[in-house]
């Protein structure tokens, strides 16, 4: 469904991605792990259209997205849960969710999508009329995921959904992600909680210093010496 080929992204003169290639098939849960500063957020933002790329190709269903305006990405079925959630804090929870379903196709399904989100995250239902900025971190993350789901995406992009959350709340997020995935939505997950992310993924990529250094089945990536070296700086003896 989504194909990224030799993607290069630069901030000013500084390259953040040095030619990354990856593919996501319909309904697949793909996980990208890697230490901080490896370029994970840059990658996911480029896929969402938030970050223009400087070279390479990005195709969705065979359609070239490289020169497409940022606001057209959503209509191809891509929705993002950005790093740090980035809710519209001065708007209510309900309004945030409604902005998620801004496009015509999603708007038609709005009532049903809202019900789905509230079922997925029951605490959201009680907070619909509260300002999004007043929620706790975990609840905000729920709204951020909910907002993306309101767009009825075929590919959900998740950037560090567990960041800053308590272990119990992290578990809630991962259960929800599994449920969304089980319902048939493809997911691209960028995570710092490597073990948990690899546990639920179908396939995984390891990103280090702007390059893909390993890819394949989650277990293989988890046990690869590359991962230990990238994160811990040492080759762990097995």
């Amino acid at each position: 469904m989504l194909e990224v080929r030799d993607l290069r992204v630069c901030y000013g003169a500084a390259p953040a991605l040095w030619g990354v290639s990856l593919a996501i098939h319909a309904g697949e849960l793909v996980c990208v792990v890697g230490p901080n500063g490896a370029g994970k957020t840059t990658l996911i933002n480029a896929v969402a259209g938030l970050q223009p790329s400087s070279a390479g190709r990005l195709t969705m269903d065979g359609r070239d997205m490289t020169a497409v305006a940022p606001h057209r990405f959503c209509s191809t079925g891509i929705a993002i849960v950005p790093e740090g959630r980035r809710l519209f804090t001065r708007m209510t929870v309900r309004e945030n969710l409604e902005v998620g379903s801004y496009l015509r196709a999603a708007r038609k399904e709005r009532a049903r999508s809202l019900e789905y989100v509230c079922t997925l995250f029951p605490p959201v239902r009680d907070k619909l009329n509260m300002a999004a900025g007043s929620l706790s971190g975990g609840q905000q993350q729920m709204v951020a995921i909910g907002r993306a789901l309101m767009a009825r995406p075929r590919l959900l992009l998740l950037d560090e959904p567990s960041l800053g959350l308590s272990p119990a709340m992290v578990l809630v997020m991962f259960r929800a992600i599994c449920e969304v995935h089980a319902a048939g939505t493809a997911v691209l997950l960028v995570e710092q909680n490597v073990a948990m992310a690899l546990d639920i993924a179908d396939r995984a990529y390891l990103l280090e210093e702007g390059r893909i250094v390993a890819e394949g089945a989650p277990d293989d990536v988890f046990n690869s010496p590359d991962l230990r070296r990238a994160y811990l700086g040492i080759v762990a003896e097995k």
Partner: protein
Amino acid sequence: MSGVFIGSLYGLLGLGIGLSWGLLHIINLAHFGFAFLAAYLCYQLASVGGMDPLLTLALIIPLFFLLGVAVQWLLARFAVTPLNSLLATFGLTAIIEAGIQAGWTADFRKLESVYAGQKFRIGELFIPVPELLTLSLALALSFGIWAAMRYTDLGRAMRALAEDAPVAAAFGINRRAHGLMLAGICGALAGVAGVCLALSFTLTPSQIYAWVGVVFAAVMLGGLGSALGPLTAGIVIGVSEAVTMAFTSPSWAPIVSFTLLIALLLLRPGRT
């Protein structure tokens, strides 16, 4: 009572300024220039052309919508910062002022409309019709825009864009088109405010700047990007000015709004 009326005019002028500042990050000084241009147009059409002043709105609203769009297009093309938008629109205001002066001279102009002498009676109060018109237009527009911001997808999209444009775009909202649209609405609001000005005030080009301070005070007091805020704040300021005038000399009046503005700017927590 006259405080309420003048306050509603502050609010009406502030509505467009506040929306533009809060949602587009453009501090549009030319809003005042537009309002005066509209006032003069209204004067021209009504006094010379013999049109009903209210009917001129049908012409003025679309015209100033387009003007607003044009200015926004220019400013967005050069991606100006808020501070530079203030400077650039000041330049624009000077051009408009000169244009008005060239077209209508610097003499005082007063629209003598059918509404001028009419009074509307509520119990023991007699309210001049132009004041009543201004008040009701300000109320209707403020509440209308408030409702649109809250209950329509368009309004919510505008607010989302103002807070985090990239994320809003990721959900399919076209930043450029919405910016032009909102600027057009602000332009149209300036047009309406101009007609209200023409109905009640004697016009002269240099008066453009007389409104700047107090209207900005209303905008800051009411909250940037808020639809009801400027009107509420405008009326508060208008009434407090009227009260100040009643107790001291009229010339003390500005101190209320400006002291309020200073206090607000200093105490306002957080960012712009």
